[in-house]
């Protein structure tokens, strides 16, 4: 849930208070240090503030007659400030400089639109004509010629990101009601132009964007009171002609009849956005509001009325909103927590199982020629048609416009492309994929990726695969190669995600995962990126980290036996919990094992595989299960805390399975003896407790019956007084 916290005034903006001189704010940029912001007004002044102290630290003005035309930014590497006045004159100074007339000055050959300063990439200058230079390049020859890229389009918005080591600048332009998006990669000096899909009555009025997984997600606030999402793939290999970016509606800004006319939008996290605008209910005066919306559940999370009016601008740095409210610049802090449905309805429980839904339109998957059996993106209506017509459609695939390539065709085309081109093309294709049977198509893409990895052992698009598995409702049967491949590569994170997401993993694969997880050394897992959600609530991480190095021989359990198959020496980690019980595995391994415990299986099919598990691993696994079982039994509701943690039934079922599979071996193993006897004692204690409880229940019931029997003589003569 997101919430707005306390607010305070950073500074006044009136003519008397010194900042802004009534002209309003041009922009707010982050200062050289955390908690610092740089304010540029629509006049001659830039001011540096320390936010928490509400105190100006420095103020610089240009001469009368001059005007700052581009927000002042800070070069984070050199701690210099950069400003442009009168469109073309560049000024660079340090904090100790007072008079801007005397600082470094360079006159440029073209008008500057904006300077973006990136934390590790240096400032990037965007010119009105669409040209882009890094500051370093520009300063080498200030008078160098700047090309005009966009002719008579007007830049509406721009933003810069770091993609790996490379700065990426994206900006949006408008011409005659059409909107275009440009993506400029500075290192490779490649520029891509996209056209934004045009929709009637919905002109974008404000933009914001973030970069994740090599995809720029552009959010635009449109005049029809909706927020649209546009995915722009960064990896463009083909120098094709203009591409059209389709947009999907992310959110409608309306709450119970009232509509929010948004003016600015910022992204808070993956599920939350903030919108500044005026809320208009029918028949009522509109009120300006700052609102936070949850895009996952399409709900308004919180809002704050701003009765004194705003300038429509909204900035957000370090969990703080900045905006003008009346004649002052106001700062509001906010909190954003990951949203879940339970949290949204106010019922966050510890143990909730996420619903895995994977619905596949099986009709679209032919028995043969899997690759070419996918329908083109545009033929939505195909869904209702029969399989017969589908086959005929398949034959006519050549007639389809090259732009509307089916994925099968696409994959065939890319067979011989370079790996980067291949991946880029797929990313791009997926970003606009809106096909009705997405799952089947994605399955195909994954298969293609895996095949390519097989042929090219050096190629492994891990994050891309992870992203696909996480975001799409895939299933095992759609891409049977994926998990086998991940097992080969020992990619535990991918396996964990697959186990959590896929509803139909064969028992053989489940077993293979279990075996792999048990055999991997803890040292290797220390560095592995594993989702620890399921263990974080019952294994004490802090404690673990301290205790990692201790070697404890416990219950006759020798470390030498724990030599793992990769030959690295096994350091046994012990994890003391509150009451002294020891977790036999590290948190990473525990999380991985939990994902196995939670996956679906059939006893009869799993058991033969489980018999092959090496005895030492079986003992370790049983120890971990026993540990979980004890943990579960601590609580009255016999459930482990945290999300995605296994239920007591799952734990007991697995315990029985392991014992069934290895009982004779366990009995023989000296190191398992203590464990088995502990387990036996514990279970016997529990059985006793429950049988006692049942006895008590029976006795209470009998008492109730006796009580009833006492006055159930069939006949009596009593005296009754009625007054």
């Amino acid at each position, binding site marked *: 849930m997101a919430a707005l916290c306390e607010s305070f005034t950073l500074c006044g903006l009136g003519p008397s208070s010194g900042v802004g001189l009534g002209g309003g704010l041009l922009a707010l940029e982050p200062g050289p240090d955390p908690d610092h912001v740089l304010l540029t007004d629509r006049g001659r002044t830039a001011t540096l503030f320390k936010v928490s102290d509400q105190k100006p630290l420095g103020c610089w003005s240009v001469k009368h007659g001059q005007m700052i035309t581009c927000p002042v930014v800070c070069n984070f590497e050199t701690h210099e400030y950069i400003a442009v006045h009168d469109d073309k004159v560049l000024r660079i100074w340090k904090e100790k400089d007072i008079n801007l007339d005397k600082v470094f000055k360079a006159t440029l050959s073209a008008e500057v639109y904006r300077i973006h300063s990136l934390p590790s990439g240096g400032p990037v200058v965007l010119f009105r004509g669409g040209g882009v230079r890094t500051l370093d390049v520009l300063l080498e020859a200030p008078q160098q010629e700047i090309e005009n890229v966009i002719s008579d389009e007007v830049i509406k918005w721009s933003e810069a990101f770091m993609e790996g080591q490379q700065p990426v600048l994206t900006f949006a332009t408008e011409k005659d009601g059409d909107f275009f998006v440009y993506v400029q990669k500075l290192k490779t000096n490649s520029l891509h132009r996209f056209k934004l899909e045009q929709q009637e009555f919905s002109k974008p009025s404000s933009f914001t964007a973030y970069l994740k997984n090599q995809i720029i997600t552009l959010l635009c606030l449109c005049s029809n009171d909706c927020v649209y999402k546009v995915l722009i793939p960064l990896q463009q290999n083909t120098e094709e002609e203009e591409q059209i970016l389709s947009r999907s509606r992310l959110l409608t800004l309306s709450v*119970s009849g009232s509509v929010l006319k948004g003016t600015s939008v910022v992204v808070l996290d993956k599920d939350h956005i903030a919108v500044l605008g005026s809320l208009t209910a029918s028949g009522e005066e509109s009120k300006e509001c700052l609102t936070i919306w949850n895009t996952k559940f399409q709900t308004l999370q919180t809002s704050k009325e701003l009765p004194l009016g705003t300038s429509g601008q909204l900035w957000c740095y370090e969990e703080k909103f900045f905006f003008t409210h009346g004649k002052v610049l106001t700062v509001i802090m906010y909190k954003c927590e990951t949203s879940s449905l339970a949290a949204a309805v106010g019922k966050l429980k510890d143990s909730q199982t996420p619903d895995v839904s994977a619905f596949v339109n099986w009709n679209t998957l032919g028995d043969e020629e899997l690759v070419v059996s996918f329908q083109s993106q545009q033929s939505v209506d195909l869904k209702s048609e029969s399989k017969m017509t589908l086959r005929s459609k398949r034959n006519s695939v050549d007639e389809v416009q090259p732009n509307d390539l089916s994925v099968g065709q696409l994959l065939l085309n890319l067979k011989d492309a370079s790996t980067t081109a291949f991946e880029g093309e797929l990313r791009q294709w997926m970003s606009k994929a809106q096909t009705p049977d997405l799952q089947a198509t994605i399955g195909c893409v994954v298969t293609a990726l895996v095949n390519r990895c097989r042929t090219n052992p050096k190629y492994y698009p891990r994050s891309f695969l992870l992203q696909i598995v996480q975001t799409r409702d895939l299933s095992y049967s759609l891409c049977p190669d994926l998990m086998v491949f991940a097992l080969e590569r020992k990619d535990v994170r991918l396996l964990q995600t697959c186990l959590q997401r896929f509803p139909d993993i064969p028992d053989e694969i489940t077993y293979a995962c279990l075996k792999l997880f048990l055999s991997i050394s803890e040292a290797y897992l220390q560095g592995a990126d594993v989702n620890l959600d399921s263990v974080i609530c019952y294994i004490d991480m802090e404690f673990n980290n301290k205790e990692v190095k201790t070697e404890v021989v416990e219950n006759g359990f020798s470390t030498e036996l724990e030599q793992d198959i990769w030959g690295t020496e096994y350091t046994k980690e012990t994890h003391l919990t509150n009451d002294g019980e020891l977790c036999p595995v590290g948190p990473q391994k525990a999380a991985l094992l939990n994902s196995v415990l939670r996956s679906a299986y059939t006893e009869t099919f799993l058991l033969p595989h489980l018999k092959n598990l090496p005895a030492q691993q079986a003992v370790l696994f049983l120890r971990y299960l026993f540990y979980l079982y004890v943990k579960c039994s601590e609580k009255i509701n*016999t459930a482990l805390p945290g999300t995605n943690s296994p239920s*007591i*039934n799952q734990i*007991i079922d697995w315990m029985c399975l392991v014992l069934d599979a290895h009982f004779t071996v366990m009995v023989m193993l000296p190191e398992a003896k203590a464990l088995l006897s502990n387990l036996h004692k514990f279970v016997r204690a529990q*059985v006793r407790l*429950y*049988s006692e*409880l*049942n006895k008590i*229940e029976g006795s209470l019931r009998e008492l109730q019956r006796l009580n*009833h029997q006492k006055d*159930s*003589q*069939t*006949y*009596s*003569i*009593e*005296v*009754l*007084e*009625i*007054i």
Partner: protein
Amino acid sequence: MGEFEVHRVRFFGLVPAGVRCLACQPGGARLAVARTNGAVEVYNFAANYFQEKVIPGHETRSVEALCWTAGNRLFGAGLSGDITEYDLAQLCVARSVDGCGGPIWSMAVNSSGTQLAIGCEDGSVKLFQVVPGGIQFERNLDRRKGRILCLSWHPSDSHIAAGSIDILRVFDVSSGQTVQRIMVNYHVQKVKRECIVWSIAFLSSGTVVTSDSFGRVQFWDWEQGTLLESHTVSTSAVLSLAVSEKEDSIIVGTSTGATYQFQLLPVKIGSLEKRWVRTKPFQHHTHDVRAVAHSSTALISGGLDAQLVIRPLMEKVQKKGYDAVLRKFTFPHRRLVSCARKARLLLFQFSQHLELWRLGSTEETGKDGEVLPLCRMPEHLVQLKSKGPEHIYCSCVSPCGSWITYSTASRFHLYRLRYEGNSVSIKKVPKMPKLLLPAYQLQFSSDSSSLFVASAQGSVHVLQLLEPGGCKLLHTLRPPSGSSEAVYLLALSTDGHWLAAVSGDWVIHVYNLKCFKHHCTVPTYNCAVTALAIHPVTNNLVIAYSDQQLFEFSIPEKQYTAWSRTVQKCGLHKVWLERDSPITHITFNPKNPSHILLHDTYMFCVLDKSLPLPDNSALLMNQSTLKQLPETARQRQLHAFKICKKFQPLLFADLLDENCLVVVERPVMDFKTQLPLPIQKKKFGT
């Protein structure tokens, strides 16, 4: 007022029969209930859910389904294979038609009430046309193997959905063909048990709702044959299902005794998309809930624990009143016990036999609340078994205890009893006069010289009892304007001068027995009469109605008494009016004319007319408060209603003499132990 010696009787071993099926009359005025012993009852919603009509059961006539058809005709069908029409005026079976398909498991009526569909053991679904004077076989629908356990018509009458074992089928009514078959256990893995579709409903949207033995309530798209939604409500079977008229609410009953309401609710406020959501769980029953019904304002469920529960939907109830009360009916709204005051005998009526008991006695006296030692134990004198499969309609023992009479649907019996020392001899009276049967109520005169038989069409037969053991028909009293309804209640004056008779149209006729003439009619009151009695001294007729109103009507003066007018003017106490069970018996204290004794299932009340009526601010049930007050302070607190709730559930209460009371209780636990064990749920352990 005084102390009473209370004979507290708990040896009446009545086990009420479980509720087998329910049917709401279209329009929602009445509810028909069939019990496992074949009895059919009609409850009137408007008359405060009074059990208005009872048609006793029959050994071979089980009822599996009930339907109201056009013209408010009631049909039942059962495992005997017959479709039976009930005569609700004469309270008997009007006619019976063989369904020709073996035992009938289910029956459903179409929306216009003109066609009946029955589901048979042999897997056939047969259509019958409802015609005046009976039903007519129309056609068979496509027959497949497997008994048809439940049926439902589509509201447009074009299709019928039928539930069987493991499968549900949809028939096209015009062609008679199966147009869809759906395997209901298709989605369950490792199925070894069969899945019985216990109940089905066809919604106008084309959704078929089923409840099955796996504890699921499922929603199907019949055209696609696909499962739309599945809700597992119970680990045991969901036996019954009913849909509201608006199709926005469903009630289901399970074999654990729980009932659940499902409601069709928008996904979010203002959204057009709606989903079925399980909203309210209720646990009113301890045993299988075999039948549920959904009236416009209430959820109704009936279980094998013999309870009929009417749970009002508070959001549908406009104001707090009769409709807003949760009602649980376990016992019939009529007397099954008659008492011979002078001989101190009790006659208990069971479905197929009678028991005559003599009360015990004591020689001690004591203070309030004391149990007195018995000097003589109660004695079971006679058990009289009714021959034949028919159940008993009514019975009576004469005040002197020497006559017993009872009636079944086709036979009427009178017995003469003689007591010699400790032995009892019983002799059947031969050559009974031919009467129009059945008799709905029997009553002996106070001097045991004549017997009054309430009969059909508003008539009352007067029989003269002859020594040593005979009788003859003296006269038949008929209402002057005629009536089609049967007489269900009788009241005799002690002096043998007056007789009041209430027929099913709730009109009370008063007859003069000296000249066998109609004397007058009590002004009609728009509610059912639940009990009435004539005062031995004043000859005032006291009437209790199902809306809990009390009236006193002076027979000689043919008008309401002054006290009755006062009661109407002041109004009865709110708490009194909000009671949910009707007064079933009224009697008087011969020594104190101002006392009227009334009782319902949960209380008995001595109404002292000489005391002021309580107003709504006063405490109605003030007996325990009064007991704590000193003598002087009591006087100010006294009011007319002296209520005792000590004895529950109360089947009968009567005054034997001025300070001797008899109460017959039937503790619910006593008969529940005789029911099969309910499904046990383990509380501890995994």
